């Protein structure tokens, strides 16, 4: 081949290479055209999302105070570790692997936290660890270049009184559940928000909750703030002043904690105490035992702690003061007396002979005093708590009249207290038995009901409410922790406190209150509640848990003890219901607790009170 031709051939090939290069360059130019001209808007948005980060500013919840502005619940500062998946240079698995080494959480735990929220928008922070230690903060700060997706977030956290004081009244807070978000109660909230889950925290969640703010900042690729674009500060929630009196609460707490010798029999029992001002409906104290530590919930409660709470056979989460009903025992006799007097089936001058038992409809019913009380007036029947007398009262009234009067007086229905999930209790009637058991009412069952046994079930709050209503002349004031004017002051709509006035003769009120004064002051079963100078009145109750015939031994079959007291006995300003589960005699296990609360009240009233309550200092 000639050199000339060869060179031509080479040049032709070079020309071909040139065309190929032009073609490739055109493809590249097309790539840039597509990105920078056609899809530019999309990429500009992505660049902005990269550069701008929205940091939530958590609003603290409002504080909860007692009536003297003493703190029941406030907030403390805390920090969380959060993950923002958007623009993360790692997969969640990688993040979990790096993080687990430094913050003492296993990869599985971390992944579990991440996966539970994986359907959330990617820019929304996922809390990986709550209430972290200084060591955790140090680890995250030291690794912020490796883990730009991880940040430390400030979150005010709930702090309650120590030693489970007023735990059931306060309730607790927690992260809103996915299922709750769909309900109208939590419609304004979003995943990850802290909301009230029980107690006052839940009832007044909308008042207490603040409004989270945010700040929009420019961040670099390490998540470090380089400048602020805008900020909407967090608005703290409203502080709530309740009617609770911490001194009265502590007195009751001391008894059930076994810290006071004068009411030691209640110590370590399950039970409940409710103290109300019957004139206004204000709740002065509300206790339920066993209790729980609401502080456990302030930090995400651990699975182990939660399990302990829900599997505990004593059910510490249950608010026995309002969510459980029990046979009222002899406390019910007061209402039977009032019902009999009002219905006219009980002559106030009637006397009955008690031989220690009575026979009705072929069954023998015993009196607590086996050798009998002898001949008794109504007054003495209440003072000595004679069953035989009240068997007759009940028999004369009949179940449906008992039901009507008891319900009218506030038993067997919700009081309307401002706490969630109140139990209605049970006042049976023939219609009720037909509805629930599809069975006829037997007259014999009325005899048990007459002394507060059988189907009758009342909650401690009902006992206090109804007793307050009866002794103030038939005026039932809706129990409440937060007065409506308090809510209105904060700009919330609030209805007035409901008031029910039922017809009752003054003479009836006089007879029963005098008799209950006798229970305490005439050597009756309530002698342990007596306070010199403060006319305390009240009624004990000792309700069987198991049938006497079964003759079961053991702590869990011991009788439930009741005492519902009030003072002064005319137009009382305080009523206290005490319920001690398996406490035995009401006179021993319940009356001393009421005494402790009433005494505190009286000492405060007369200026003799010294702050020496033990539980608050423990």
């Amino acid at each position, binding site marked *: *081949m000639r*050199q000339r031709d*060869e*060179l031509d*051939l*080479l*040049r032709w*090939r*070079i*020309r071909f*290479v*040139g065309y190929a*290069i032009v073609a*490739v*360059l055109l*493809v*590249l*130019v097309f*790539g*840039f*055209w597509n*990105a*920078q*001209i056609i*899809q*530019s808007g*999309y*990429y*500009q948005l*992505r*660049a*902005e999302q*990269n*550069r701008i980060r929205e940091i939530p500013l958590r609003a603290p919840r409002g504080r909860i105070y007692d009536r003297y502005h003493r703190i029941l619940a406030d907030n403390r500062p805390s920090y969380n570790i959060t993950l923002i998946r958007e*623009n993360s*240079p*790692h*997969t969640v698995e*990688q993040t979990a692997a790096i993080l687990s080494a430094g913050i003492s959480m296993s990869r599985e735990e971390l992944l579990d936290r991440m996966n539970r929220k994986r359907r959330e928008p990617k820019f929304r922070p996922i809390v990986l660890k709550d209430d972290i230690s200084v060591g955790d903060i140090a680890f995250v700060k030291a690794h912020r270049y490796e883990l730009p997706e991880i940040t430390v977030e400030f979150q005010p956290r709930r702090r309650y009184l120590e030693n489970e004081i007023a735990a059931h009244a306060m309730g607790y807070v927690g992260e809103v559940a996915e299922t709750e978000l769909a309900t109208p109660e939590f419609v304004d909230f979003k995943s990850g928000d802290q909301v009230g889950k029980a107690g006052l925290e839940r009832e007044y969640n909308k008042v207490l909750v603040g409004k989270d703010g945010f700040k929009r900042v*420019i*961040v*670099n*690729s*390490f998540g470090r703030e*380089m400048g602020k674009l805008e900020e909407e500060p967090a608005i703290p929630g409203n502080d709530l002043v309740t009617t609770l009196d911490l001194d009265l609460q502590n007195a009751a707490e001391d008894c059930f904690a076994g810290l006071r010798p004068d009411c030691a029999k209640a110590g370590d029992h399950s039970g409940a105490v409710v103290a109300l001002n019957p004139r206004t409906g204000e709740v002065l104290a509300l206790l339920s035992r066993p209790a729980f530590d609401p502080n456990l919930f302030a930090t995400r409660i651990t699975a182990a702690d939660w399990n302990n709470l829900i599997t505990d056979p004593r059910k510490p989460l249950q608010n026995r003061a309002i969510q459980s009903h029990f046979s009222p025992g002899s406390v019910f006799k007061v209402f039977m007396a009032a019902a009999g007097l009002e219905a006219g089936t009980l002559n106030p001058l009637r006397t009955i002979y008690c031989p220690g038992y009575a026979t009705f409809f072929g069954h023998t019913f015993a009196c607590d005093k086996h050798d009998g009380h002898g001949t008794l007036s109504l007054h003495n029947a209440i003072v000595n708590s004679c069953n035989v007398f009240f068997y007759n009262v009940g028999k004369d009234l009949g179940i449906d009249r008992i039901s009507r009067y008891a319900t009218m007086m506030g038993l067997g229905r919700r009081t309307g207290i401002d706490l969630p999930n109140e139990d209605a209790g049970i006042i049976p009637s023939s219609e009720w038995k037909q509805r629930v058991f599809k069975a006829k009412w037997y007259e014999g069952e009325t005899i048990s009901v007459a002394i507060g046994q059988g189907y009758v079930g009342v909650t401690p709050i009902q006992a206090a409410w109804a007793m307050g209503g009866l002794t103030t002349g038939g005026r039932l004031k809706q129990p409440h922790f937060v007065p409506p004017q308090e809510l209105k002051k904060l700009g919330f709509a609030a209805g007035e406190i409901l008031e029910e006035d039922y017809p009752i003769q003054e003479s009836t009120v006089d007879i029963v209150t005098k008799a209950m004064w006798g229970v305490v002051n005439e050597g009756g079963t309530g002698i342990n509640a007596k306070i010199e100078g403060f006319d305390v009145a009240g009624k004990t109750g000792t309700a069987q848990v198991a049938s006497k015939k079964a003759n079961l031994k053991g702590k869990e079959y011991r009788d439930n003890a009741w005492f519902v007291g009030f003072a002064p006995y005319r137009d009382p300003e305080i009523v206290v219901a005490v319920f001690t589960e398996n406490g035995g005699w009401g006179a021993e296990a319940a009356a001393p607790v009421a005494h402790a609360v009433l005494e505190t009240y009286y000492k405060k009233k007369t200026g003799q009170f010294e702050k020496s309550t033990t539980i608050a200092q423990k």
Partner: protein
Amino acid sequence: MIGPFAGKHFWKDFDWPLLTSALLLSVLSLTEIYSSTMAQPSENFFLRQLAWVVVGIVFLFVVAAIDYRLISEHIPWLYVLAVGSLLYTLALGHRVAGSKSWVVLGRIQFQPSEVIKMVVVVTLARYFSELRASQYMTLMQITKACVISLVPMGLVALQPDLGTALTYLPAIALGLFVRGIRPTALISLLVAFVLVLPVTWFVLKPYQKERIMTFLDPERDPLGKGYQVAQSKIAIGSGGLVGKGLFRGSQNQLGFLPTRHTDFIFSVVGEELGFVGVIASLGLLAFIIFRSIYNARTARDNLGLFIAMGVVGTFFFHLIVNVGMVIGFMPTTGIPLPFLSYGGSSVLNAFIALGLVMSVGRCRYVN
């Protein structure tokens, strides 16, 4: 007669447009390196690059002034020296990011694998030009040509720096094509390449496999490589037509772009100077490439032709791999963009290559 140095016509015949293009790219490079490393002023990336550009220009003038045939005469021992330097690197090199590719001489660090690219290009060009004229190369000749580039290439791959090793391929590929091989041989080579590919898969390091997998499926992203490309595309796309302005690219300034002064420098250009800046810089690079092709076609002899085409192949390969990577058309590799990416060895190599092209262009007038 081969004149060792240029005569009186040197300045008159000097290829000023080519130098101007390279200088414009260098100015752009220095500006964007300054922009992308403002956050780390203590590292002095700008000043170090400036120093290398100055050194590069000196080398360009020296190489351009020497007749390429003189270089070709001395190429055998230069080639031996080059292979020796690679062996030295393998034995005593400085390890950075898993590769032993650096040599430290006093205060200067450089990568022999970058600097000796042109030695291989010239060696190949000499071999191709010395073949007796015939339409197609024989199998033996093809094998010999392959050995010339596979020896240094293999040594670089052993460092292991597969990306850089691959940059030795275009020179030989383009040389074989231009010199001419039988269509059947071309097909056999392609078939052999395809057959070797799966074998290569097994010798690849896990991170290399990961890169290829990520390229095939960016959503995979286990090592965050897809993240880099995604951020690069965001930078480029958000630049729009005219860009966000020098020093004002948020992706660049806030550090969302990875290795932004080296491998991803073109993303910074795209973000801060927009489509206009991209076209301008691609235009300058294309001008250099097509000027080199022109010099190849008008070269006085085959030696000059193959040298110029070797440079074309090397430049163009760097361009498509790097620019293709930042726009998401190519897998992530650590291959720099000539004249633009930060890096002394890369800059030096680019200016030496340009000097060779100028020498080829200048000498066509000399006879």
